[in-house]
């Protein structure tokens, strides 16, 4: 399971190198960055590994509260790494949930004339999560190979959502910053399988999850 997470991180690494479009700009243009370039066009190059935003969310099967950081590619592709927590009262044991989300948003639409607000009407993508701390955590030799064909702690699922952004004052170095609120509707592999095999009995609404979150550019 941990290997899978590492794999996800490895897959993410090359994306992250692309996530800092190198746009050289003379220092004296810093003060005149037009509002239209709000979309994270950094005026100085940041190291590739430096996260471009932090985020916090609830739900979506990724924790009662989950926090994380992420990378952006051309303001369209976001990769977020999250750590979530569910207290014992809500799950029978304390769960920590490690997850990676990849979301693509083709459009950013400005709202109003002030250029302060913008909306990404469509975010589409998926997530991979690993849950630690379940009561019955598949000990070695507990089962013979293939006893349970599914993983009890690794989930994958699709995501679909929207995001509303507010342009904060740029940083001292002139990088534009947004504070965004988002929702994501999702599901997971096991719910989808249950639905596909019971189309009469279950409805798509039965297998939906909702997450609500905030994202801040740093």
């Amino acid at each position, binding site marked *: 399971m941990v290997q899978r997470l590492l794999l996800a991180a490895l897959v993410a690494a090359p994306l992250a190198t692309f996530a800092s479009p190198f746009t050289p700009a003379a220092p004296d243009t810093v003060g005149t960055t037009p509002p239209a370039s709000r979309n994270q066009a950094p005026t100085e190059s940041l190291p590739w590994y430096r996260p471009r935003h932090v985020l916090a969310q609830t739900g979506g099967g990724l924790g009662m509260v989950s926090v994380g950081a992420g990378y952006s590619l051309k303001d369209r592709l976001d990769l977020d790494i999250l750590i979530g927590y569910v207290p014992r009262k*809500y*799950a029978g044991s304390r*769960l920590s949930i490690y997850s990676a989300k990849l979301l693509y948003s083709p459009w950013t639409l400005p709202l109003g004339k002030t250029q302060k607000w913008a909306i990404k009407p469509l975010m589409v993508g998926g997530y991979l999560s690993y849950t630690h701390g*379940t*009561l019955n955590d598949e000990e070695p030799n*507990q089962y013979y190979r293939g006893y349970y064909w*599914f993983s009890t702690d690794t989930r994958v699922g699709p995501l679909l959502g929207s995001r509303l952004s507010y342009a904060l004052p740029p940083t001292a170095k002139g990088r534009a910053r947004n504070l965004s609120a988002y929702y994501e509707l999702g599901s997971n592999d096991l719910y989808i399988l249950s639905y596909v095999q019971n189309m009469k009995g279950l409805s798509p609404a039965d297998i939906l*999850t*909702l997450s609500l979150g905030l994202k801040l550019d740093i």
Partner: protein
Amino acid sequence: MRQSYLLSGALALFLASCQLVEFSPNQTYVPVAERNLTSRNLRQLATAGPSLGDTVRFVFVGDTQRFYDETEQFVASVNQQRGIDFVLVAGDISDFGLLREFRWVNQRLQRLRVPYLTVIGNHDVVGNGRAVYQQVYGPLNYSFLYKGTRFVCLDTNGREYGFGRQVPDLAWLRRQLADTAARTVVVSHVPPTDEDFDPALVQGYAATLRACPNLVLHLSGHVHRYTAAQPFHDGITYLTTYSLEKHRYHILTMWGHRQFRLETVVYGAES
């Protein structure tokens, strides 16, 4: 008036979104109305009507796991039967031990005209399923007396506990079987003849049942098919039943000291 509509609408929306905002598929949190179903259903059974005579008649069916379409057909069929006291589900209510699965099954089984009772299955112990079962249904081991019959329902999913010689709890079972006045039925998910039963406890389990003079039957699920045998050659009959996908269930009628009759019902279209 309109305001109260709005308010209740907003409340319904809020509650619906609470269910949507799922912290983990392994979470255990359910609305109060969906907790402790075993004791609720036992109360319903106790007040169901005058218990005439000593004949008890119940539906016995196996694993409902991931068979939601079939579960609806099952409920429709059982609701057409006459003279059924209750329905007994032999475990594996869920397939992945996830809360939503338990809720989907309960949403269907609660449409039965009679109460239903369950025993925990190995799939129900996966992940945090054990805590989900405890929240939704109640204790993993329990027994009840109905029309002169003691039903002993217990967790025999030894493999899920790493064969630690703790499950099934033989000391608890012995205490339940000490009631020598009542006709007795023992219900578990994994039968003791199965490789998922703790091998160190098989002989002790069989001996405990053998020592009970009023035992009518031992009932299980897990194998998804009907079997009936006396594997320990001691006069104790071990019976297993169909899973929901087989479109079959059993009706068991018990009377007298240890008399019983087994009927098989076939329903719906086999897919």
